[in-house]
């Protein structure tokens, strides 16, 4: 049922030309995904999905809309060839999932490689009671550091773009001959 809602939201996102509605529907999509994660018992992933997908991403997309414009241009190409390529790729991926182990199979390779060592030795080696925190902050410390750097870079990029725009429009406000712009709030 939730997956059906997810599919409806995805189709609506593709079909609509009003980008504001698309952003709203993308937020709804993230909320459905988060609900599915909760149903699948992955609460921390669901938190991340709700905070990033429904919260931050929606706000960032709306900020982008404020800079660009609200309506999507008409597509100039025929959708037939990309549709065929995507269908073939999707069919190949679905065919590939038939080789995967069953859901929650304890004999799956992912549960045999390093996971037992993390579970058994983790509390002794790291000393953090929460297993996920121990793996993320200690065993995969460099990985997490790289992710933080990526997110920091993206945030700095977005902030510099938005800040440039705001400074220019406030400069336009200051000069007397230009028409008034809408941004009258003080810079944050």
């Amino acid at each position, binding site marked *: 049922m939730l997956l059906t*809602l997810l599919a409806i939201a995805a189709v*609506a996102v593709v079909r609509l030309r009003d980008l504001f509605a698309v952003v709203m*529907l993308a937020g709804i999509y993230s909320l459905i995904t988060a609900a599915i994660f909760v149903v699948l018992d992955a609460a921390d992933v*669901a938190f991340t999905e709700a905070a990033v997908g429904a919260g931050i991403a929606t706000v960032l997309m709306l900020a982008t809309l404020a800079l660009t414009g609200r309506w999507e241009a008409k597509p100039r190409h025929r959708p037939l060839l990309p549709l065929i390529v995507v269908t073939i790729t999707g069919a190949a991926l679905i065919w590939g999932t038939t080789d995967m182990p069953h859901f929650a199979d304890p004999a799956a390779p992912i549960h045999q490689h390093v996971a037992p060592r993390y579970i058994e030795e983790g509390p002794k080696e790291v000393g953090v009671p929460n297993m996920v925190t121990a793996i993320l902050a200690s065993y995969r410390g460099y990985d997490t550091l790289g992710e933080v750097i990526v997110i920091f870079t993206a945030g700095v990029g977005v902030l510099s773009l938005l800040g440039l725009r705001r400074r220019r429009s406030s400069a336009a406000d200051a000069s007397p001959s230009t028409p008034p712009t809408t941004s009258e709030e003080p810079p944050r």
Partner: protein
Amino acid sequence: MFAAACLGILVVMALALVRASLPGNVYDRILAINMFGTKTVLFIAAYGFLTERPDFLDIALTYALINFIGIIAVLKLVERVAGTASPETDE
């Protein structure tokens, strides 16, 4: 009874989704996503009690906070975005 509540919430979620995807006013859409967030909170809470794990209630509360902050941010930004004209009047 919790199962019936979950089903009802899912139906209302579908209705909100339809409202958000139909053409309409900007504020209808904002109201739709706000209501959808509320329904997600309710669904997680009801599902937690359905599967006898009341600790899902904490997750639902956090969702409510995220939803509230998100809607405030959306409304603040909408003032700037919503005024732009549609392509029919543009071109």
